[in-house]
């Protein structure tokens, strides 16, 4: 679960990471009031969860209250890369001398927290990695012990921070590590971490992503409703309510598979044969007819989808159950969209027979079925 900047900064404050004075505002008046209280100049920051918010015009500086009013009005209600802006963070503008980068992530193969630091802040870590990979300093932390001050100092020295800033820097590293650990984060990031002209240091932006599987441990972070509404398309949100594992893409061939890997492989195979997958939808292992029906019904309602390709490898999942679910959907509604089914494994014969009798394309290999789906999508 991605946290908004203002939420992440609240966690930063709790763990002693300095952030600029700031307040959230949901209306223009609130923004003006906030600017008055904080003092000018301020920065108005759209609270959206998309990357590249700044370049897309989501961060505006304002030197006068009139400017605040005008720019807040411009931001609120607008769309930044498809995300509606309903809330601003109004922050005291900082006098920036230098921008650094600091984050904590999970080192998957090492199975440890990994700290990344760089003197090249203000751009995506991906870009730093491309342009000057030698400027990214890495350090894995022993999770049983936690980050130690000497490690934080070492990171600071290695990115070339002047000695007089090391004391402040240590607080950022320690605080960010604490946030990462306490809130079960997948990522805790400060970018940019600003050095100001008066020799202070501030977290200008803040990004925390909490492990979806651990959100239950942090009820204070968000109500269930708010949690689900984040960063999801309309259909993704609906899929969550239905309990489906669904991700929206921009193609026209609906994909259903059992198992995440198989579903991705199905998408890839469709693409390999020239088609465009519209989504990822995994019904998991051992699905019964009801779940099959629910998933199929869900995709059939999607306006962009022309053809649905269901790819089932029956292991624990039984092919006759799958067929039963498909037939339920067809019985209950008039389906105009084409359906391609690949069905193999446990009870394969029975399942195929049931579907053939209903006049549905059934294939036994993924490649054949994918080619057929692509062909049908072209015809529509």
């Amino acid at each position, binding site marked *: 679960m991605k946290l908004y900047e203002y939420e992440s900064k609240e966690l930063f404050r709790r763990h002693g990471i300095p952030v600029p004075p700031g307040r959230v505002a949901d209306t223009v008046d609130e923004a003006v009031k906030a600017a008055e209280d904080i003092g000018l100049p301020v920065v108005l920051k759209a609270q959206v969860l998309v*990357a590249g918010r700044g370049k897309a015009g989501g961060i505006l500086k304002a030197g006068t209250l009139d400017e605040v009013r005008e720019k807040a009005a411009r931001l609120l209600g607008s769309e930044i890369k498809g995300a509606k802006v309903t809330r601003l963070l109004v922050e005291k503008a900082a006098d920036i001398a230098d921008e650094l980068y600091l984050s904590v*992530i*999970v080192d*998957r*193969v090492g*199975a*440890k*927290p990994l700290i990344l630091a760089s003197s090249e802040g203000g751009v*995506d*870590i*991906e870009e730093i*990695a*491309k342009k000057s990979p030698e400027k990214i300093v890495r350090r894995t932390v*022993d*999770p*049983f012990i936690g980050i130690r001050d000497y490690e934080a100092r070492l990171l600071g020295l290695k990115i070339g921070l002047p000695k007089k800033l090391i004391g402040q820097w240590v607080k950022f590293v320690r605080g960010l590590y604490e946030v990462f*650990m306490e809130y*079960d984060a*997948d*990522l805790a990031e400060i970018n940019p971490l600003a050095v100001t002209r008066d020799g202070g240091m501030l977290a200008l932006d803040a990004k925390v992503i909490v*492990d*979806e*599987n*651990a959100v*239950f*441990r942090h009820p204070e972070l968000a109500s269930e409703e708010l949690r689900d509404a984040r960063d999801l398309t309309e259909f993704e949100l609906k899929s969550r309510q239905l309990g489906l*594992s669904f*991700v929206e*893409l921009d193609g026209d061939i609906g994909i259903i*598979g*059992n*198992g*995440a*890997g*198989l*579903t*991705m*492989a199905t*998408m*890839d*195979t*469709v*693409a*390999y044969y020239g088609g465009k*997958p519209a989504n*990822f939808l*995994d019904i998991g*292992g051992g699905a019964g007819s009801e779940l099959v029906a629910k998933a199929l019904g869900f995709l059939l309602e999607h306006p962009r989808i022309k053809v649905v390709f269901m790819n089932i*490898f*029956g*292991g*624990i999942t039984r092919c006759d159950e799958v067929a039963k679910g498909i037939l339920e959907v067809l019985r209950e509604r008039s389906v105009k969209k084409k359906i391609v089914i690949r069905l*193999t*494994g*446990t009870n394969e014969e029975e399942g195929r027979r049931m579907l053939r009798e209903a006049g549905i394309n059934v294939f036994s*290999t*993924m*490649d054949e079925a*994918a080619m057929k789906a692509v062909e049908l999508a072209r015809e529509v």
Partner: protein
Amino acid sequence: MVVLVDENTRVIVQGITGREGSFHTKLMLDYGTKIVAGVTPGKGGQEVHGIPVYDTMEEAVAEHPDANTSIIFVPARFAPDAVYEAIDSGMKIVVVITEHIPVHDTMMFVNYAKSKGTIIIGPNCPGIISPGKTKIGIMPGHIFKPGRIGIVSRSGTLTYEIAYALTLAGYGQSTAIGVGGDPIVGLNFLEAAKLFEEDEGTEGLVVIGEIGGDMEERLAAMIKRGEFTKPVVAYIAGRTAPPGKRMGHAGAIISMGTGRAEDKVRAFREVGVPVADTPVDVAKLLKKVLGR
């Protein structure tokens, strides 16, 4: 002949009285797996498919001192506790089927297991099978057959898909390991590859990767360093996955510029490992690299 588990492996099922635990205990017994005990706190004294159930691993091990492996079907909130209990009771291998365990919990128990010399397989994995000998997991047993190809995979069903194709093409398997679809797993590709490298019964390796992390790239680097020398064929799922979105598995996500399928494919191809474009191609490429 095989890696990690064989017909002598003695298994304890943790969470044996639950729906999944009981169901798969039956399937494993049917396959021939030597399950000696089950554990569910508070349910000691019962039997499940003829297997005695204990309250604690300590008791189970006291009664069945030959047990050396456990498989965990415990819900996510209680699974880490079960893992620690398994490690502390001296299990050499712990297979964690459970999905949705918070990654920080997994990070902790994986490090703990390493410090104790226990091998964790999973979490969020289908388990491990040495066809014809034992199956410690939830994979359908009949699609595998004994042979000389090792399989290591981050996926479940996709593994079955490919394994079945191998079986049909006449390539039986020494051992197939589903390492799990979470960001952090116990046994990783590198460690698994090392085991297959050392196993005389394994002639070649099929690697089934997916987006997220850089385990595939690191395996490619390991091959480049000459630490894995047997023929390899790879398949990578998720070439069409968008960045920043979890694709079902908690670990299947492209983030901060790492984890892209294209990078993994390139890494393998650069070290001479053929990568199949579709799952069905795996068996064909295997024929090429094995020359039979």
